């Protein structure tokens, strides 16, 4: 499935990122908030579920080539993070649901 399918299927809020980024293929998922763990464990193509919406999260998304960042439980998304995400073509989505509930539903679709 693509990031766009994810957005449509789960009515996700798109905080940042254009049509190009939305065409990326989602091949897996990773849940985590400690950036060092994510940095060394998340895989290319993952949908990364987290509450960390700061500027360093964008750096981690670029390093790991995840398909998108999905902020859970309406977590905050910083202004400087948005700027960095735009510069790097990182798509950032948001949902009011928690990571567990979202991950279960996303896993069913993959």
């Amino acid at each position, binding site marked *: 499935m693509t990031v766009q399918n994810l957005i449509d299927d789960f009515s996700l809020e798109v905080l940042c990122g254009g049509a190009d980024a939305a065409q990326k293929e989602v091949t897996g998922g990773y849940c985590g908030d400690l950036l*060092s763990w994510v940095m060394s464990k998340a895989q290319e193509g993952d949908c990364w579920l987290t509450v960390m919406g700061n500027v360093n999260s964008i750096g981690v998304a670029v390093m790991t080539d995840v398909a998108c960042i999905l902020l859970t439980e309406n977590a905050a998304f910083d202004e400087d993070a948005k700027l960095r995400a735009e510069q790097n073509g990182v798509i950032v989505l948001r949902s009011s649901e928690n990571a567990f509930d979202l991950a279960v539903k996303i896993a069913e679709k993959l």
Partner: protein
Amino acid sequence: MTPYNLVNLSALMGMEAIALTDHNSCMNCGAAMRAGAEAGITVIPGMELCTSEEVHVVCLFEELKAAEEFSDYVLSTMPPIKNRPEIFGTQLIMDETDKVLGSQDILLTAASGISIGSVEKLVDGYGGVCYPAHIDRSSYSVISNLGMITEEMGFEVAEVSPMGNVDDLIEKHPILGRMKILTSSDAHRLDALPPANLSLHTDNNIKSIIRHLKNR
């Protein structure tokens, strides 16, 4: 922000003592201390350690050698993730005239393997003092990441950012009422350096400042 510029601008702004606390590294402290000796300002060797829980802890040392040994130890606990300069910038090591001596390839923004519960004793063993950084902030702070400060962590001091409301913090976390509260600039750029604004009632030398913070 380079050692020579940092030290000399701080001196111009009226500061008598500063601490250089790079992220997970003390490799620029020697340069800053030598520049400080020239400029007539005390430079305390230090580090902003990122614990395994991604909590930032300021570590200050009496001796440069101990700081550098601590720095080597911290590096040995870091995950072997290479820096990507296009994302995080280069991690330069400089001399006291800002000449580039080299760079660190391991990504220093990653978390070390040192836990919040072990850091106070560890730093004390290197002749230093440490305290949780910017505890009012929503990221990389002991309160945001762990929800509380406990006696067992062993901290005598806590740092609050200039935007923090100390009274509110003490009300929510009574343990802070028994701790020394410092406000530091946490300046990451030269233009964020504030005028001198923190007074410690102690002699202006590294040993006295560290002992003052340790209540010894």
